[in-house]
């Protein structure tokens, strides 16, 4: 366990903290943007399901002794799952939430079995569940990949913002006016999948979907326009991340759990604020 002063005593450590901070902030930004749409479309559990699949992929990567390649392995797997889930949800006999539960628990089971069989003990697989105890395992590839993908997500989101709003608000109207709603649903699923994999290492696959659901829900306590909710969601999420991140550094807590706790506090605070605001509104 390190104190902050010890931590900052070496330039090397500062470099690592900055890396973790950059990746964390980018992932937080992406997930809080995507979360608004996902929560409103009643897709909150997709994040959770995909993160379990991500865990499965990481476990398989560890089993193959390729832990350093885990992003490169798990991104395609999770993106593919997102595709399949939406396809199944739309057409198949297995309906939305059930297929999600099947896929997510199945992936965890297969992943951990393979990991056990392989006899590899190189990475602590618990890290993938609860997030790394020490943050500072972000390699060059991870950093670059995270930065590039997060920025791509943000650009895509801004570029398609009006369409994403329309598809979220009213899918049948959007389809009738000629918007290819399936394309935007897929886009949303793919972006979510990528975001989840990027954030999983730091937050842990059990908690990464909190970054998607909490900020959106928190913002909806007080904001009543789509743009307002987006802006509020992003700011709350970034603030919670920064607070959680440095608290975790300072006291040597787990980053994921601390950041989620900060989000819980924000949610409670905003719920109360929302209640007060509504009372005023009614009077």
């Amino acid at each position: 366990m390190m104190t902050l002063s010890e931590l900052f005593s070496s330039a090397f450590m500062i470099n690592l903290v900055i890396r973790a901070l950059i990746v964390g902030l980018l992932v937080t930004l992406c997930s809080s943007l995507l979360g608004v749409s996902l929560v409103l479309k009643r897709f909150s559990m997709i994040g959770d399901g995909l993160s379990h699949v991500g865990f499965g992929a990481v476990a398989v990567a560890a089993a193959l002794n390729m832990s350093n390649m885990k992003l490169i392995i798990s991104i395609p797997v999770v993106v593919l799952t997102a595709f399949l889930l939406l396809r199944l949800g739309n057409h198949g006999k297995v309906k939305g939430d059930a297929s999600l539960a099947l896929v997510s628990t199945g992936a965890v089971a297969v992943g951990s079995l393979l990991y056990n069989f392989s006899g590899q003990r190189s990475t602590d697989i618990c890290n993938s569940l609860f997030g790394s105890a020490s943050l500072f395992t972000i390699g060059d590839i991870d950093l670059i990949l995270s930065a590039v993908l997060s920025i791509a997500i943000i650009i895509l989101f801004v570029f398609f913002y009006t369409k994403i709003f329309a598809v979220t608000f009213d899918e049948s109207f959007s389809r009738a006016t000629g918007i290819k709603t399936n394309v935007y649903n897929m886009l949303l699923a793919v972006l979510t999948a990528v975001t989840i994999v990027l954030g999983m290492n730091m937050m842990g696959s059990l908690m990464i979907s909190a970054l998607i659901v909490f900020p959106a829900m928190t913002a909806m306590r007080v904001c009543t326009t789509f743009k307002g909710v987006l802006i509020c969601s992003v700011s709350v999420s970034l603030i919670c991340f920064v607070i959680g991140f440095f608290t975790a550094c300072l006291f040597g807590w787990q980053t994921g759990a601390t950041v989620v706790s900060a989000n819980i506090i924000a949610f409670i605070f905003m719920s109360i604020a929302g209640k007060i605001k509504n009372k005023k509104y009614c009077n």
Partner: protein
Amino acid sequence: MSLINCKNLELAYDNKTVLSDLSFQVNRGDYLCVLGENGSGKTTLMKALLGLIKPVSGEIRFCCAKHSEIGYLPQQTDIQKDFPASVSEVVLSGTLGKRGLKPFYSKKEKELAKKNMEILGIYHLAKQSYQNLSGGQQQRVLLARALCATTSMLLLDEPVAGLDPVVTAEMYRIIKELNEKGITIIMISHDISAATQYASHILHIHHKPLFFGTTQEYLSSNIATKFLGGDQK
């Protein structure tokens, strides 16, 4: 001049034929009401008109307009009732169909949204949140959005579902006014008395067309007397 021409249409849902032998046309300025019980094929017909499903056989021919130029008023979903969006955000989204890939709304589109909000008397609510509006106001917002998507034709799916009698009458009045301004209306409904009161043409279906013609003709036909008599709900 006919805007929509349907010939020998056969429509299926999940590979089951739900509507067959349907021929009708809609002329500019018409107010057509599509009547039928639940499960009679109304929704399927509507989807076909919007181009969301392909007919099994027969054809739907559009003159001067494409599928995507129909202004559509769908039934409200659960998601929308507590959706955080301002009225102007919702109305503006009606202009999206024509814009291709442009990321932001242009001035022209904002003007159009403003004009349509004014027509429906909701411009003063533009900054309000959609979720705080009454059912009737929400329906006007959705109607304004539909107007942003069209200049010629509105397709309304049970536009008064869930509204109280006063608001229902108000809604029918608004629709009639839009029709008098030259907008062609196709309304899906099972409210026969309102249909015969407001519409100029009636299409009554039950897996097959039972009647197509003007409202006057309909009122003197057997089907109407049967429906307005015993069977009416």
